């Protein structure tokens, strides 16, 4: 079909949300229903388009870019940057996940509007995020990738800053006392921009160096990953370029020790902000590693792999231990992301097809599970007006259905087999047993496997700690006499797809692997010849 093959459908998936944001901003503030329905319809149509793409996708050729625009579709001719987009087996699941989460967040916002209200701006920002995120996953040109990668910053900054937590936070070292939302929003923006500024320098360095091999300078990921494994980028140059890319992506993932923006941002953000952050924004970083860093600079990836692996397992252990020390349930889940993304990065660091498959299914699963966790925790704290686990307890009595869903999500998060979270953790540990030989550090990676396995136990520990403090036991004195309304319609509608997805992927991981496997195998084959 024409509109699929010439990139129109995929472009619509990317740009419909921003058009929707424009329409939402044009609707007068008083007409809230119109604002909400417009946003919902736009996001539903976008999701439907993404699903059509997923259905029409040629899974037998998952390692090729499909539904895209031609590689030479002009954009900025002066610097040879093109509007080149497309999806393969690696990006397809991410695109579907993005459009799904965006839609669910809008559904949830129908009757859960954080203070100070203003649904118009909130939904416009959500839609704008949708464009930025989907665009990053489909971009096949480094400049285009950079632009989309950055577009998400501003709406997320607004989301945290306007609708975020107004509690006071004391900032050590600087000695500031400021509202959580102000601190977190600034920190989020500054950290990410720091990383991406260096990422941009690396992109430019690749651009200029590519001229030596290609005869012309290119930002095309496709062309660069063709010449990369052939030895176009070597030596100190390659090392520095990888360093720049690493800074950009590692901050976004986030890897220990540049993760510190994450607990603040996730905790301070309003519920849908946390959901989008956890479910998708973090994946921009890991996706960048898989799509850009590994294929273009495979030799450097091999050199860096042990280092990345070390940071990944530190992240796993550190994140889990930090979780055990939390009393704020939202902050606990935020730290759990550090641990889970550690598993994803460990999978990537093995540089094997199993490891990268594990990373992608880990990304999808983390998106669904942590998205659900943030939704439920957000709804709970909305009911209780506190997130302090010392005061909570007995949700199974006061809010039985919601408690059950939290239990389910926590089980999925700790990697219970038959639920989605299992595959990512299990396979990334499996891959660490047998990492790419060229790394020459098999023993070290086996050590990572052992440490990672300890991490899974810690994960179970803090998730059970969360459940014990929040849902088990008798409700505390202050809650006994109160009436709580359990899961409402909007919540059911927003959560049911996530629950279904978690179970479906847990039982049939082929939903994800079916798309990713061929693409990953070919990526690894091309980059590392293994």
């Amino acid at each position, binding site marked *: 079909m024409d509109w699929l093959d010439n990139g129109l459908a995929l472009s619509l998936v990317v740009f419909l949300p921003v058009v929707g944001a424009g329409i939402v*901003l044009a609707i007068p503030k008083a007409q809230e229903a119109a604002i909400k329905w417009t946003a919902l319809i736009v996001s539903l149509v976008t999701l439907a388009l993404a699903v059509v793409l997923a259905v029409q996708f040629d899974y037998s050729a998952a390692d090729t870019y499909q539904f895209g625009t031609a590689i030479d579709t002009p954009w*900025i001719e*002066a610097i040879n940057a093109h509007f080149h987009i497309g999806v393969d087996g690696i990006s397809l699941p991410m695109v579907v996940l993005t459009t799904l989460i965006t839609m669910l967040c809008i559904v949830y916002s129908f009757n859960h509007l954080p203070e100070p209200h203003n649904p118009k701006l909130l939904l416009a920002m959500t839609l704008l995020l949708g464009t930025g995120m989907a665009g990053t996953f489909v971009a096949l040109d480094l400049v285009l990738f950079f*632009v989309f990668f950055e*577009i998400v910053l*501003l709406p997320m900054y607004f989301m945290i*800053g306007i609708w975020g937590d107004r509690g006071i936070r004391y900032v050590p070292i600087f000695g500031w006392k400021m509202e959580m939302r102000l601190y977190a929003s600034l920190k989020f923006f500054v950290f990410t921009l*720091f990383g991406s*500024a260096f990422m941009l320098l690396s992109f*430019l360095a690749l651009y200029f160096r590519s001229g030596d091999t290609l005869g012309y300078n290119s930002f095309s990921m496709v062309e660069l990953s063709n010449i990369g494994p052939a030895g176009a980028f070597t030596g100190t140059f390659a090392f520095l370029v990888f360093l720049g890319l690493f800074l950009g992506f590692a901050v976004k993932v986030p890897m220990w020790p540049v993760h510190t923006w994450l607990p603040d941002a996730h905790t301070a953000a309003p519920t849908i902000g946390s959901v989008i952050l956890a479910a998708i924004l973090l994946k921009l970083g890991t996706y960048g590693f898989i799509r850009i860093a590994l294929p273009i600079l495979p030799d450097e990836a091999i050199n860096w792999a042990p280092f990345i692996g070390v940071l990944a397992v530190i992240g796993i252990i550190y994140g889990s231990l930090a979780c055990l020390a939390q009393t704020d349930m939202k902050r606990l889940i935020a730290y759990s992301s550090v641990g889970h993304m550690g598993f994803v990065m460990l999978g990537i660091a093995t540089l094997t097809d199993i490891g990268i498959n594990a990373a992608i299914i880990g990304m999808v699963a983390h998106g669904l599970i942590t998205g659900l966790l943030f939704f439920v925790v957000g709804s709970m704290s909305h009911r209780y007006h506190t997130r302090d686990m010392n005061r909570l307890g007995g949700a199974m009595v006061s809010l039985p259905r919601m408690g059950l869903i939290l239990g389910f999500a926590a089980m999925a998060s700790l990697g219970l087999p038959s639920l989605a979270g299992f595959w990512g953790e299990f396979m990334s540990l499996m891959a660490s047993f047998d990492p790419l030989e060229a790394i020459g550090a098999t023993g070290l990676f086996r050590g990572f496997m052992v440490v990672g396995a300890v991490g899974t136990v810690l994960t179970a520990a803090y998730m059970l700690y969360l459940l014990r403090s929040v849902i088990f036991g008798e409700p505390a004195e202050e809650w006994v006499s109160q009436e709580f309304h359990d899961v409402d319609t909007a919540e059911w509608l927003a959560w049911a797809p996530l629950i279904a997805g978690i179970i479906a992927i847990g039982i049939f991981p082929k939903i994800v692997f079916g798309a990713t496997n061929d693409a990953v195998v070919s990526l690894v084959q091309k980059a590392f010849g293994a």
Partner: protein
Amino acid sequence: MDAIDYHALLPEIILAVTVLATLLVDLFTSRKSFAAITAMIGMFASFVAILTLAFCDNLTFCTSTGDRVLFGGSFVVDGYAIVLQGLFIFAGFIVVLMSVGYLETDRYYEGEFYFLIVSAVLGAAVMASSRDFISMIVALEIVSGSGFLLAGWRKGDARSNEASLKFFIIGVLALALLLFGVSLIYGLTGTQVFSEIAAASSSVEDIALFNLGAIFVLLGFGFKVSAVPFHFWTPDVYEGSPPPVTAWLSVGSKGAGFVGLLSVCYLALPSVTEIWGPVLWLVAALSMTIGNIVAIKQTNVIRLLGYSSIAQAGFMLAPFGAAAATGADLSQTFSATVTYLVIYAVMNLGAFAVVIIVGTRVGSYELERWSGLNTWAPGLALSLAAFFMSLAGIPPLAGWFAKFVMFSATIGVGSWWGYSIAIVAALNAVIALVYYLKVLKSAFFDTVPADLDVATLEAGTVPGPTSFAIGLTAAAVLVLGIFPGLAANLGDFSSDFLATLGL
């Protein structure tokens, strides 16, 4: 002597006529807005004249081809001149638009104000075409002279007087340094014309003295572009001047300084990049770093924009610093600075237009008084966010591409002269974000100060001309951000002529 090419001179002729017409109209009419309208019509006509020059090849009545060289090489109309003249006229036009609403709230003269603005635009336009030191300095002084008077426009206001005096004294000092440098170069090469200096510079006997002259010229322009360490006057002058004048100073006057630097470095001294490259590398690094760090502490929006303009000058100077590398592609670095200047002009003018409106309505430019802007003027708040984020370089607003070409030109020279300044710039882009976000935080995250009456604030209107200026610049910021090829083409168009010089 050849017949004079009046088509090439048409933009300047129209501007010169407009200067006089503005004064006359003001003399014979009672409605002050007529003077503004005259100025705008004149500038628009002049802009059209520039377009006919730019698209000469496609127009039937336009017979001349290639660059037009007049007056024995002193005055040239090429891509570089056309782009920058267009830019200065655009800037003047926007400044007049925002002045109309502003001056009505004041009780000072109006007609002469527009007269001075158009004079300044004329000076800047001539500067872009000047290809020798004499005509360049005369043009520069037309820009500066008008600037001194405009800065002191609010003569009842002590700070405006202070601004004017400071600006004047520093301006004269800069001129003295510049003239001293020029006299050395003239003495050693025996010519004022840039191309002849470039040719003669290789055979200069006393190369040390020649370099000294070059450095003095750079110092002179360093003041004009308010680069560190010649920046001390900037925040005071910006704060004291009437805000529309500040907008002009930060774009037009600064732009004229950059034209001077570009012409001198790339046209007169292309053979001594090893002299001006390292000097400007240092100046760029200092301007970015000090401008940004000091800006973080500012509480007044105008002062903040003042320091921001110092830092932005540093970004524009970065490609000059990268040009220190041997074998650097000078047309790349040249084009990067021009592209940056074009985008900077658009976004900075837009930022000032919004700042003036909000500042007048709140009655203060202190940031804390601006808290909660979003609650009483969401449209203004959104455009404020757009312009400030563009200045910070966040896509999809035009500023990202300005930073991008700057990084591209510096990395592209392929040596540590470029890499190092690119890394400094990257770190500074992050620091700059902190204070641009401060403005957004006030506007969106904080609550309205208790003593401000939201109902009155909400009832305020944006004067038509100013909202047109905001609309125009906002549209430009978006279009240039999404289709940055347009800005890149301007930059390339402006640097085409360098290729013919064999650079």
